[in-house]
Every structure is written in C-alpha cells, then in structure tokens.
C-alpha cells in the first residue's frame, strides 16, 4: 500500500517542486535586496532574479517579459484585470461578460462592479461545461468593454474554446481576459495564438509557492491599459505597487520553466493516469457519470458523480486520499457546487460528486490504489443507500414525492 494520505487534490494547490525551492532559497538570506534598489549589488541581483522570472513566464505563455505584472496570486490578478479595465475604460462602456462557472475571484469582482454601476452578463454553460459562442456573440453590445472567460475550470477541468472567444472579441473590439490558473503549465497556452489580452496565473497551481502570481497585460495590438487598484511606489509599470516578493517570483519563474520543459510528456502521462482511473472505476461500478466534457478537458482532471452516494460520506470512507467533493454538506450553506449546478446536472448528482486532480507527483501505483478504495467505499455506501435500493427495484426517483426538508 502506498504511503497515505495520497494527494489527488492538485486543482486546490500543488506541492512545490523541490527544484523550485532550491531556486528560491538564496533570495531569502543571500540575495535579499529590494529589486527596486538601483544603487547596490543586493538590489541588482534581486532585480536580475525578477527579470529572469519575467522571461521564464513570458516564454511559457508566448508573451514578452514586459507584459508580465507580478501580483500576490490569481485572486489579485483577477481583481486587477476586471476592476482595472472597468475603471480605465469607463468612458467607452460599462458592460462586462463572464460565465456562470467562473471562480469566485471573478464572480465576486463582477458583483462588486455591479454595485458600482457596471452591467454584467453571466453566460450559462452547455451540458459539457463550455459556453455557447452564439450566446457570447449576442451578448456583446456597443457598451461591452471586456469579456472574461476562464481557460480551464477548477472543478471540472473543462477547457473553454478560447481561440474562438478571442476571435469574436477582436471582431467586436472588446478586450478579452482569461483566468488561466488551471491551464498554464498544464496544456499549451499562448497569448498570441490564443488572442488573449489579459491573463491571470498563480504559482501554487503549477508547483510553485503560494501567494505569488502574475497578470499578463498585452502591450501591442491592442495596448491594454489598467487603472491600478493599489496606490504606492508605482512598481510594475504603475499597475501594481508594492515591493516585489523576490524569492517567490524566482520560484514562479523556475516553476514555469519546468512546466515548459515537461509539458508535452506530462500531458501524456497524466492523461493516461486519468483515463486509467476513470476506466477502472467505471468498469466496476454502475451509475457513474463524468461531469463536463471529456474531450475538452485538462489531462489531470476527473470529476465524477457516483449516483445514490453522498459525496461527503464518500470522502469520509476514503480518508487516506485527499480529494474534494462538489457536495458542500461540510459548509454551513449545504449548497452543492454552483459549477455542477450550472451544467444542469441536478442537485442530487452534484451532491454525489468527487473531484480527482492528478499532478506531477502522482504515480500509477497511487491511481490503482485510489481506484480500488473508491470502488470499495462506493459499494459499501450503496449497500447503505435507500436510493440505490429503490433504483435497483426499478423505481423512478424523479417521480417520488420526497418530504420537504
């Protein structure tokens, strides 16, 4: 048996690659200068590290180094992109388009902007988790200044048709921002080929440290401008003030370089492991549903609903495995995942879902073990489930009169 607990929650965060840690260490105790100190060697070596990282990030995403703005993570990058554009382009319009399945860092930012007088359109998604391009086209008005659609979803791993979205935006003269936190370093992302104007990334999802990220801001065709959301020393081309977090930035750069080197092989390896996990589970259990498109999906993601089994009880049974559930029975709200609800899966299937997030440090041995444990616990819980019993008796659960609760 592999050493427990097994970490299959790589969409929540990732382990920092030991090679990244090694890159960071000298910037705590040796080269601890302020990257803005222009007149001594400490400052120069810190600046050098920052500029190297900028190049490494730019290289991974097909940008130029000057287009990388460092932030404290993707929550900040998303806030800066949305609020910065809304403020800067207020004279042009006040309408922003996003999608129902976005991360809270987007949805709460747009809610904030709504209070300030912006109009926000929340596009629904189709059953496969992707937006409908015709609906996007129809939603754009002459007041639209920004479309913000995530590259890949953090729960279901579904990849949006980014190239098609950017093409529509370009035709209509609207800026395009994408929260690419889950995609960068995992699948090919290229701001030129993909036609992206602004893009949020964070280090801790790509085997770098927590609390550091970046916003890509296009400089040519068009030159995107942003109103800074934090006042101070005017760092980062005036878009984001604050002394740069040099060790973490060096880590983000190193993490991007490693992802770039390993991307193709890692995509293949994770896709194989994910498919193995899926196939093993689905060959042993009936009534298992994959949430979201399998075709347009991150290789390391598997989000499945085990019908007639409640997600939290399943997590309790596989407590030697770190995964997450779309059922929020653990929280005070008792609300199932809004992303799964947006797919139209039905609350019952949302309550039965588990997200498996495979990453760089997972092995085939772990996949075999996890599949076996999941199968064992789902079988046990179905023996306990009145719903599975009714299903087996041929009762249509959708026709049952449930008691109000």
């Amino acid at each position: 048996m592999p050493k427990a607990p097994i970490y299959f929650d790589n969409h929540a965060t990732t382990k920092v690659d030991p090679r990244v840690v090694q890159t960071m260490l000298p910037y705590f105790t040796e080269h601890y200068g302020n990257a803005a100190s222009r007149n001594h060697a400490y400052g120069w070596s810190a600046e050098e590290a920052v500029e190297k990282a900028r190049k490494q990030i730019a290289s991974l995403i097909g940008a130029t180094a000057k287009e990388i703005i460092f932030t404290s993570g993707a929550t900040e990058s998303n806030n800066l992109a949305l609020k910065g554009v809304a403020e800067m382009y207020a004279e042009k319009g006040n309408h922003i388009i996003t999608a129902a399945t976005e991360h809270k860092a987007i949805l709460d930012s747009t809610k904030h902007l709504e209070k300030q007088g912006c109009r926000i359109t929340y596009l629904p998604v189709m059953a496969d988790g992707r937006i409908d391009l015709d609906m996007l086209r129809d939603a754009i008005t002459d007041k639209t200044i920004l479309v913000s659609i995530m590259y890949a979803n953090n729960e279901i791993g579904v990849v949006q048709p980014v190239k098609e979205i950017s093409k529509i935006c370009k035709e209509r003269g609207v800026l395009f921002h994408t929260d690419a936190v889950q995609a960068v370093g995992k699948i090919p992302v290229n701001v030129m080929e993909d036609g992206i104007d602004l893009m949020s990334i964070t280090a801790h999802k790509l085997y770098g440290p927590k609390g550091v990220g970046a916003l890509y801001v296009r400089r040519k065709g068009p030159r995107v401008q942003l109103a800074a959301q934090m006042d101070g020393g005017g760092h980062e081309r005036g878009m984001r003030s604050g002394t740069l977090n040099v060790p973490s930035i060096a880590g983000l750069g190193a993490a991007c370089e490693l992802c770039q080197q390993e991307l193709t092989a890692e995509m293949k390896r994770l896709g194989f492991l994910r498919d193995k996990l899926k196939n093993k589970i689905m060959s042993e259990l009936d009534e298992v549903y994959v949430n979201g498109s399998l075709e347009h999906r991150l290789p390391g993601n598997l989000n499945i609903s085990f019908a007639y089994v409640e997600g939290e009880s399943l997590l309790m049974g596989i407590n030697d495995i770190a995964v997450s559930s779309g059922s929020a029975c653990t929280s005070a709200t008792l609300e199932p995942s809004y992303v799964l609800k947006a797919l139209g899966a039905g609350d019952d299937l949302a309550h039965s879902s588990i997200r498996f997030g495979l990453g760089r440090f997972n092995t085939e041995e772990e996949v075999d073990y996890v599949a076996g444990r999941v199968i064992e616990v789902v079988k046990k819980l179905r023996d306990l489930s009145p719903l599975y019993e009714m299903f087996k008796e041929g009762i249509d659960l959708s026709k049952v009169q449930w008691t109000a609760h």
Partner: protein
Amino acid sequence: MAYSDKVLDHYNNPRNVGSLDKSSADVGTGMVGAPECGDVMKLQIKVNPATGIIDEAKFKTFGCGSAIASSSLATEWLKGKTVDEALTIKNTDIVNELALPPVKIHCSVLAEDAIKAAITDYKTKKGVAVEAGALAVH
C-alpha cells in the same frame, strides 16, 4: 472537519443496516429527506404484536457521515422500546450522544423525523388515530 469517535464508529460499523418487509402489518416505514438536499433516510420498525415492543429496527441512509451515524444510532435506541417510548427520542439526544457540531444538527432532526414517520406509518396501518403534530415537517 473532524468527526467525533462515535460518528466514526457508526460510519465504519453501521448498526442494523437493511430493510424490512414494507407490506407487513407489523412494520412501520419512514422515509424522510430528499436527494437534492443531500440526505434521505429510510427507517423501519417491526413491532411485536404480543408485547407492543419494537423488536427490530433497520435503516438505510443516503447522506453524510453524521446522517448515517444519526440513523444508525436511532435504530439502536428504538429496539426494546414501546412505540410510545420511541416517540420520546429527541434530536437533541442524538446531537449529544454523537457530539454533532452545529452544521450537522439537521442530520439529527432528520433522524427524529424518520422515527416519527415510521411510527405514524405503523399506527396508520393498525388503525390507531395519529395525534396531530406527530409528523414534523421541516
């Protein structure tokens, strides 16, 4: 979230899992909750016609670990009680016994509802008038 040892024990070794014959005159069945709310409990009692004592209780639950533990515990408590004694089991007793945190109190409420629903079903079958309010609706 950490579970109490008692919740873990009931989850790992649930008591009295199974089903009784719904159509039997001595069996009362209660089914409460809804799949879209994330929990459904089925609780059944079998009453000895000679003594009026519940000599079998079974459950099946779709729900979180606390919901499973609440219904498992309920079946343990039901056995050996008369129907009227069974009606005195309160959700707060379950909360205390299992050390349920505030967000899990609804699981104990559901278990109490399931007990009442099973007893109501049994009494209805026996032609006993069911006193108003016995079946709480939430």
